[in-house]
């Protein structure tokens, strides 16, 4: 680690996010108690866990939205050593349901992502505009440029939120429930897009997700959070086990092997005696 770098120089390193013994207390309620997390550069890590486990809080701490003290290090530099504008060029956050300002066009919305490059009280340069046009082209949003954000569908909006984050030019992307408002087709579309961008541009992705199967399909590693602690971490097939999920989600699930990772199938309680499920038997009618 090169933690002794002067503020302002974010040195290249293989570790994008390093969280050591993070404690967060909000309104005197402990939310995170001693969380450790390491995300390698270029990796996709998804944080899972039951409601209230502290997933969003963890993301907010990594994104600099909460004072995290010395516990969070981004690309080798302690986050508190970064000035807000520097931090904004390193890490971009897409919140769970970002506000949709009335009357704002897609172009204007994505242009606001260039804020960390615009001098305080300054205005966008031609280069900022060019960067935004490139991002819009890459996300197939060209045709939506002058559309009002509020008139777009959920899937299109999610692409615009992503575009805003990409316009920020950060290598670390934090996605808080990026697909919670989308139908299953748009979920896949958005996540495939994120994965493609990650591969093409060497982005690092730290996300939270509720859908466990989808979380396992896209992430390199999963981190299971429960009551403010990391209770399991590793490749999807090590974390998505019936035993761990039953213990921490109090859920009755079957885990079946899938093409891209284990698939988690909720099973109604009381049906435990039914025939064992396998990949081909998911849709089989009971007979």
């Amino acid at each position, binding site marked *: 680690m090169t933690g002794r770098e002067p503020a*302002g*120089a*974010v040195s*290249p*390193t293989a570790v*994008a996010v390093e969280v050591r013994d993070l404690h967060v207390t909000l309104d005197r309620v402990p939310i995170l108690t001693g969380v450790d997390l390491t995300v390698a*550069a*270029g990796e996709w890590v998804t944080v899972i866990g039951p409601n209230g486990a502290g997933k969003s809080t963890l993301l*907010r701490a990594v*994104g*600099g*939205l909460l004072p995290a003290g010395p516990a969070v290090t981004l*690309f080798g530099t302690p986050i508190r050593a970064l*000035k*807000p*504008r*520097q*931090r*904004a*060029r390193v890490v*971009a*956050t897409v*919140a769970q349901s*970002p*506000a949709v*300002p*009335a*009357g*704002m*066009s897609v*172009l204007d919305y994505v242009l*606001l*992502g260039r*804020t960390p*490059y*615009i*001098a305080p*009280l300054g205005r966008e340069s*031609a*280069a*900022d*505009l*060019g*960067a935004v*046009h*490139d991002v819009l*082209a*890459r996300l197939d949003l*060209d045709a*939506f*440029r002058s559309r009002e954000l*509020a008139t777009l569908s959920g899937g299109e909006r999610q692409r615009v939120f992503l575009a805003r984050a990409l*316009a*920020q030019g950060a*290598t670390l992307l934090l996605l808080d429930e990026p697909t919670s408002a989308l139908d299953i087709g748009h979920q896949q579309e958005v996540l495939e897009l994120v994965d493609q961008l990650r591969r*093409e*541009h*060497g*982005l*690092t992705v730290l996300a939270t997700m509720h859908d466990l199967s989808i979380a396992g399909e896209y992430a390199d590693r999963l981190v299971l959070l429960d009551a403010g602690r990391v209770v399991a971490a590793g490749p999807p097939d090590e974390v998505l086990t019936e035993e761990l999920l039953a213990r921490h989600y109090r859920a009755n699930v079957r885990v079946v092997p899938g093409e891209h990772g284990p698939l988690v199938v909720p099973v109604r309680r009381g049906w435990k005696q039914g025939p064992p499920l396998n990949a081909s038997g998911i849709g089989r009618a009971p007979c």
Partner: protein
Amino acid sequence: MTVRPTEPDRPAGASRTPRPAGVPVTGPPAAGPGAAAQPGGATAGSGGAERPPAGPGATARPAGLRLRWLVAGIAAVLVALVAGVSLGPVSLPAGSVAVELLNLFPGVHLDSGLSASEIAIVTELRLPRAVLGLLVGALLALAGGAYQGVFRNPLADPYLLGVAAGAGLAVTVAIVLGANVEVFTGMSLTVPLAAFVGSLGAVLMTYLLGAAGGRDRSPATLILAGVAVSAFLAAGQTYLLQRHADTIQPVYSWLLGRLATAGWEDVRLVLPYFAVTAVVVLLHRRELDVLSLGDDEATSLGLHPQRSRYLLIAAASLGTAAAVSASGLIGFVGIIVPHTVRMLAGSSYRVVLPLSMLFGGAFLALTDVVARTAAAPQEIPIGVVTALLGGPFFVLILRTARRVFP
């Protein structure tokens, strides 16, 4: 995997590549139509400044103040100025008035055909009144626009946030405590200062009370808080006036304002407050756009939303206090003008704020003309006229607010 983290601070003006940091530099930068066709397009490498616009919607321009709107705003100010000076108990020809106004510029000597007494009416009576109307209207509209952005609330208005009531109470206290305050012949410094402290205190009370509802509060919560704060402060003021009946006359005249008797000294008193408020608010016009994304988004974009918010509240309250000091309590300007601008010219604060300043000034100067000519020779208090216009307008906002501010 090659990962190049984001570049550190670049000097302003240095050429920027639009490529997001961390893009592995592979192959020559591709530009042109071929690149865009590539899935996941390698267009990232093309030079941003030179990149020719392409594709549908390429004509879309980023939000900004269009020249024609700026010209329209300045024209409105000039029309209001000439109308404000030429209309009155003795109507003067607008053309002569315009010529006489030009004569005020150093080095201009034109013959307007007005007599010496008419010239005195123009420069000593009507012009200061029209200019004060412009300044007060500009301040109220600017403050309203700023409050709406800061609170992300379409209904925010200096009047509805309790600012006016706070200023009223504080001024009453100041007058009661210092009975010898000269409120008529030029304001002492105490009264505008009291008005500022009072309006700032009232906004903060309203904000804290409205914020008690938590993050999911509706726009109406803040307005309800403003109503409660206004009622509370007005009660305090009534009690004070009751206990000190001798101050009712000066306090009441002060609250009604002195637009009718405005002289150049009033303009000189308001001008510095106007300058500070206008500079602070207008410099933050882009930040207000970022703030409209939400506090978390603004923070993650490298801003200090809370810091900007307090600065803007202070500036808007200072402007409101100065306006109230000069012209009494005038409601609804801060809501009528920014909303009309928003509907006509665009919702970006980079458009709303400068245009609100221009059109707000023109609006109040013209309203003042109505106030003094509609029931001539009597004058209708200008606050009554704006309230008559503003009441129905407010209902309109309430009905469309859901559409404009989802």
